[in-house]
């Protein structure tokens, strides 16, 4: 993040001008400070991201008791690893198996489990994803590179209320020798949303 956000560059697009105007106005009125904004940005740009979720998943892959706790009370089990906060107060973890594939969406806005995944990517917030995930999830997943066998059951979760969903992907085959830290590196954000296996 640049430090000169309150300087007015010469050629700004209309949206840049509006954001700049609003920030300056709120600061001038003493309603917010630049530093408050900086702090929120830093927290979600630098500190919180899908690595948190990957740690949760790797722990569940290596610790059967933790996996059970995670599926029984996602919020509490995720808090064990120190993660929580806005958009994570009621976490539901849904588990992929050989028979079941889970997919998370928010059709009405873009609800997303921030404490474990950070802020959502553009496609998650887009009209194509939000419209199609509930109507043609298999076709959508195929387009996104995730081909599901016909016999796998697809379960879509539309985060329309307070719960936020995290998919617990299947542990890849051939990883028995890997430790928890090595497994973390194998867990992708896309798998924890459900657009990858």
């Amino acid at each position, binding site marked *: *993040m640049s430090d000169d*956000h309150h300087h007015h560059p010469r050629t700004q697009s*209309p*949206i*840049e*001008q*509006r*954001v*700049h*105007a*609003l*920030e*300056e*106005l*709120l600061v001038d*009125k003493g*309603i*917010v400070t630049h530093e*408050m*904004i*900086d*702090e*929120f*940005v830093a927290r*979600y*740009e630098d500190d919180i991201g899908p690595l948190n979720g990957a740690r949760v998943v790797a722990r569940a892959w290596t610790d059967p008791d933790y996996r059970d706790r995670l599926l029984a009370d996602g919020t509490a089990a995720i808090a064990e690893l120190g993660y929580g906060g806005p958009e994570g107060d*009621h976490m*539901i973890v849904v588990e992929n198996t050989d028979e079941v594939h889970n997919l998370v969406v928010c*059709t*009405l*806005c*873009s609800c997303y489990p921030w404490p474990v995944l950070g*802020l959502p*990517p*553009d*496609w998650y917030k*887009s*009209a*194509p*994803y*939000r*419209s*199609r995930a*509930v*109507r*043609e*999830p298999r*076709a*959508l997943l195929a*387009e*996104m590179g995730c081909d599901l066998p016909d016999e796998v*059951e*697809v*379960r*879509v979760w*539309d985060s*329309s*209320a*307070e*719960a936020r969903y995290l998919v617990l992907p299947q542990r890849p085959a051939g990883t028995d020798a890997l430790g928890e830290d090595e497994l973390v590196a194998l867990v992708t954000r896309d798998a924890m949303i459900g657009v990858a296996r």
Partner: protein
Amino acid sequence: MDGIHDFGGMEGFGPPAVEIDEPVFHHDWERRAFGITMASFVLGVSNGGQFRHSIERMDAEHYLGSRYYEHWLTGVATRLVETGRVTIEELEAGAGGGFPLSRPVASAGVTVPEPGTDVTVGDEVRVRRITTRGHTRCPRYVRGRRGTVVRIDPPSSLPDLEAHGDARRSEPIATVRFDGRELWGEGAERAAVHVDLWLSYLERVT
């Protein structure tokens, strides 16, 4: 409200544009819009329902044609004007041009559903046909549709009330499982779609 934001099942969109190694923010203005909005929550400018509704009230063409954090910026600016913290004149003067806000809350037809009956896991339910012109978290694509309750979450404030005044009603939220064919007809993909619905959105199928 039956706004453009209610995307579930809507057709006419193509493949999602997936960006490899996408950054958290694509532009510096997105950082600032995100931070301003987060600060506005701390300051009590909006509750969740009010903020979401301020975005839903954007002009549909503006909503569809703008990036996500422009939605946030428009919503938070609208709320700041509506709560008397800033004026549109101040915003336009600062921006050196237009500053499109969302439309006002509907002056009529903002309704709140009657409290629903209690349900338990396994119950067959039908979603009420919510027709409010105000805020609701009952998506259009499940209204009138039948499903099965698979989970009950703890009571939480009904958004339809929360977005429009001081009254509150706290209700359990039922996760309802819908068969894809119930939602999209016999030609639909095989899939189960789960939607989290406040009890007021539901009626039991007898």
